[in-house]
């Protein structure tokens, strides 16, 4: 059963103990019928769902509100709403007030949230609209009515994203281990250039060919903003994932 609070549909997951696992989706749609349907589609696809009725509420939940709304946001935080951690946002295009396109732009403009994939839903199959959304950074565009096959496609994309991120993390930790070993063996300081160390270690590591491109990625990454993956990595090419994060769901690196 779901409770309704002030425009939110909070759907407690039956396996709420594994909050770390599973994809958490924020669904935005002004139509109650569509919210119910998308919620069910996502839950039956093993996703945790929070459904809201407007872009404004979505931004509030994410903690992305503008300064003028500080008074209302402080009252909502006293009501016990923590900032939500979501893995995916799926939003309707046509909504009163803030459209799905405007919501998409606000999310992509935010340094904290631009990593989160955004999917747009629309009942109108307008090519110009689809192009505009994809250009603004939407991962995918679904023509309504949304079906199980659409949600499955999204789910598969999220799973492949997770695999890529795990692979990248494994590469980072294996390169760190190799660096330490080299340090022990040759008594080198860590100030020596990471690219040369990693290129020598990559030949001994059993990881895929993407580790060979590891040094070539680092020069292009210096101007990039901090990404969600950069927090734990000590070495410089920490936001390895940033060139690939904008992949559309039908493509692979």
């Amino acid at each position, binding site marked *: 059963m779901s409770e309704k609070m002030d425009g939110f549909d909070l759907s407690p997951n039956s396996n709420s103990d594994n909050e770390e696992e599973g994809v958490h989706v924020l669904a935005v749609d002004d139509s109650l019928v569509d919210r119910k349907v998308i919620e069910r589609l996502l839950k039956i696809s093993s996703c945790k769902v929070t459904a809201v009725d407007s872009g404004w509420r979505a931004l509030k939940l994410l903690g992305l509100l503008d300064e003028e709304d500080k008074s209302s946001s402080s009252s909502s935080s006293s009501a016990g709403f923590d900032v939500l951690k979501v893995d995916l946002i799926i939003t309707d295009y046509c909504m009163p007030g803030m459209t799905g396109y405007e919501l998409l732009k606000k999310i992509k403009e935010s340094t904290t949230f631009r990593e989160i994939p955004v999917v747009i839903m629309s*009942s109108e199959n307008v090519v110009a609209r689809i192009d505009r959304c994809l250009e603004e950074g939407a991962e995918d565009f679904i023509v309504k*009515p949304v079906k199980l096959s659409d949600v499955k496609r999204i789910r598969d994309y999220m799973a492949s994203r997770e695999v890529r991120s795990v692979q990248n993390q494994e590469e980072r930790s294996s390169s760190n281990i190799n660096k330490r070993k080299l340090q022990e063996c040759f008594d080198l300081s860590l100030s020596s250039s990471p690219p040369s160390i990693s290129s020598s270690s990559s030949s001994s590591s059993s990881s895929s060919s993407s580790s060979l491109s590891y040094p070539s990625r680092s020069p292009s990454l210096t101007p990039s903003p901090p990404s969600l993956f950069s927090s734990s990595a000590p070495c410089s090419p920490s936001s390895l994932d940033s060139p690939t994060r904008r992949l559309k769901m039908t493509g692979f690196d």
Partner: protein
Amino acid sequence: MLGWGVDRLRADMSRLLAILFHQGVLDEQFLQLQQLQDESSPNFVSEVVNIYFHESEKLLRNLRGLLLDREFSDYKKMGIHLNQFMGSSSSIGAKRVRNVCVAFRAASEQNNRAGCLRALELLEHEYCYLKNKLHELFQMEQQRVLAAGVRYPLHQQL
């Protein structure tokens, strides 16, 4: 005693659904909704459809109110209501209702009041037919569940 009716009810439901599909009243999106119904959400279809009925009747009242107003001119507002109606109808698979909304919207975009009035009448008729048929379907489903319960009382404890 009631048990033998379960199969008959199931057959009747299938027949009614087949008719509704054949008439174009429902499309495959309704089947999609049925696929989303299971033990964890046993009344999903009727819940969503009841929300749809509630919202649709509000929209129909609004549309009628707008059009019957002698000084009516807000076709844009009517368009917004129609878009909502179209969207929710398509989400539950109410194909004929949705198609009438499309025609209604076309008349509205041409500021054709007479055309809108005709479309509204047709829309109300189609909506009524859909509602009646879906109620029939849900009643049969309820009877089937009850009859199945009587037939296999032990299974209710599962």
